[in-house]
């Protein structure tokens, strides 16, 4: 009987592997779409939106935690007067500051704003993480968080790009929304004003901007695919 068990086991394992491999290979092409292709595209767009929104919410949460911790340990005295001169390097990016404004501007513009913001924060966050790791200013918790924050910003940017591409293929927005080129060009004009920012200001600014990104993505989703959970 043991002689039979071995080949049977091998065959069974082989079959399982085959099934898995077929599943894996099929996963790229697999979609939740059936016959109705048009609906299906919009469904996947909503799904993509949900994912990026979740991602941005998570990123904002981390930035909020870091900022609170920083204020707790490094700025015990809340001196409101000293904060007059705060200036974020992204202040020159015109962002809608209210619901009506965000609803009024064009989809493409809104999308562009999101992209600009994300692009503007790539280098500063990385720099911040490096300084934290080098100077041991935070404890280990803070260092991990800063790295995570930097990675998440990077991933979110890639995700939003995917969403933009999807929207463009669907014809939801025009192709005027630039890819990687235009935000970078804008940043180059700004220079590296962020290098002179204090860490506290950097954290403060990023917390605000991550909240903006989250809100703009939500508004964009509800403007484009409102029927899927708004």
């Amino acid at each position: 009987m043991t002689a039979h068990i071995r080949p049977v086991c091998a065959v069974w394992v082989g079959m399982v592997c085959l099934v898995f491999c077929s599943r894996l290979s099929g996963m790229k092409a697999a979609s939740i779409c059936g016959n109705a292709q048009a609906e299906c595209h919009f469904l996947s767009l909503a799904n993509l939106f949900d994912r990026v929104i979740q991602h941005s919410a998570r990123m904002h949460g981390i930035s909020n935690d870091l900022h609170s911790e920083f204020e707790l340990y490094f700025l015990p005295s809340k001196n409101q007067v000293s904060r007059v001169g705060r200036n974020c390097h992204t202040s020159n990016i015109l962002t809608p500051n209210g619901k009506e404004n965000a609803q009024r501007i064009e989809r493409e513009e809104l999308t562009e704003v999101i992209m600009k913001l994300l692009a503007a924060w790539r280098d500063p966050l990385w720099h911040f993480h490096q300084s934290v790791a080098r100077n041991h200013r935070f404890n280990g918790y803070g260092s991990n968080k800063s790295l995570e924050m930097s990675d998440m910003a990077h991933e979110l940017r890639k995700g939003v790009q995917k969403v933009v591409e999807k929207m463009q293929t669907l014809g939801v927005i025009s192709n005027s929304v630039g890819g990687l080129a235009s935000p970078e060009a804008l940043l180059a004009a700004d220079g590296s004003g962020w290098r002179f920012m204090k860490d506290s200001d950097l954290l403060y600014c990023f917390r605000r901007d991550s909240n903006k990104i989250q809100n703009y993505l939500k508004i964009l989703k509800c403007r484009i695919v409102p029927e899927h959970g708004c």
Partner: protein
Amino acid sequence: MLRARMRRRLGLAVLLMLSAALRCRSASPPGKPVLIGCRSPEKETFTCWWEPGFNGGLPTRHRLFYEKEGSEEVHECPDYWSAGKNSCFFGKEQTSIWVEYSLTVVAFNALGNTSSDLFKIDDVMKIVKPYTPENVTVLVNDTANTPYLCVSWNHPPKVDTKSGWTTIKYELRVQKEDNKPEIFHPNKKNSFKVYNVDPGATYTVDMRCQLDQSSWSEWSTASVVKIPNYFQNEKPFWILVSIFSVIPLLATICIVVLKRKFVKQWLLPPVPGPKIRGVDVQLLKSGRAEDVINALIGNQNFPPAAAWMDQTEEYLLVSDSNDWLLTDPYISQKKKSLVIPAGVQLEIQCRTSAPAQSDCENAEVGKDGKVEPDHLAQTKESVLNVAAPSVSSGSKEAASGNAAGPTGYVDIQQHKGTQGAGPNAAQWDYSWVKEVNGETIFILKNEDAAAGLDVPGWEENTAADYSRVKEVNGDDVVLLQKHDSADSSCKKKEDRSAEWTNQKAKSRHGSDCGKGACLQIAGNGYVDSVPRFYVE
């Protein structure tokens, strides 16, 4: 007297006037107002409140000025009344999220103004605090005996949930009586079901909400519900059931207790100890061997055939010579011829002339030999009855064969007189059946009174009783030699016994079973005189 009064009154009046004048002059600029806080209920507008200081005795007016981030322009509060007294309401147009506000309240009166400290709002998001959820209703749903609470609510007022501008998160608190409250976070917008509720308990339910990770709202007004107790309704039923089951149980217990002996006997019947019928245990204990043996053996109804020790063994002389028969005075008295039928039945009457001797008649068996015993019970059954001789009494009673009936036993009647005597009774005679050949039984007669039951004694005593087979004539005739005198019988017997044994040893077979007769032949050549016959 009058002058004094007048002076006093004058002094008082002057004093009063002076004080009045002084009071009029203490009006001062207003005290410093304090901004208490601001709140935005829906992330689109916000309101700020302040606390005025001492008004300085003069009518005071308060004004709020604010600056927005990135602009030096100073604005004044657009709406002082919508939100009540000492408040400022910022509408949608004036509200900018993610913008820093700097607020100041200035109190004005006729004498001057006083401004409060600067109040900064980092971000309107920080002051967002929604109202409580509306219309929180709790229903008890009791289907299928598993009750649950169904809580429903509406979003707080003025909050826009459609445009995706805000993401509301709700929190539900359920407290059972005085226990620790349980917190739930519903995923749905409007309803939630609470399942782990106990019947008969009272629950307090309230809710609050949050916008985009902002501060939580206040708890809504609590709803108190009581879950009906289902077990209560069924209580009488269960009481009845328990009563009706307890009564028979008690009755059973009473019966068992009263009749416990009976019950015990029924459950655990006594195991009878070993007991021999007729044997008195006390007798055994007393220890007298004779009594014991009597008790053990005497009561037994051994088949007579088995008690060969007690039986007289008789030897039948079979001879061919009538002379011998006639010459023997004793024997000639009775002449008997034995007819041995197909089934062997042989009855021999023996008489004893002397105590030591018992002669059995010789039965001559011839081919056509007839046996004519007087008391021969002739039946067709193949039963061999060898009547035991009566030693002392010589009565014929003993000689009467007790036919054992057609049971197949050879019944040798016990000698009654010597019943109970030990095996060493010297007066037992033995009959030997030497051989059964077909339908013929050859019995060796024992002339002497053989006494010993023991084999050696038996051999001694019966050594003289051997008859020698002289001739075998045919199938059913064996001619035996006549006995010599008793004097030399011993010797001869011994010789003969040797011969016998020799012969016997040769021709021995374990059992010689014929058609109707089967004899057990003892190993030493003797034929058991008490054979068992099995009648077909």
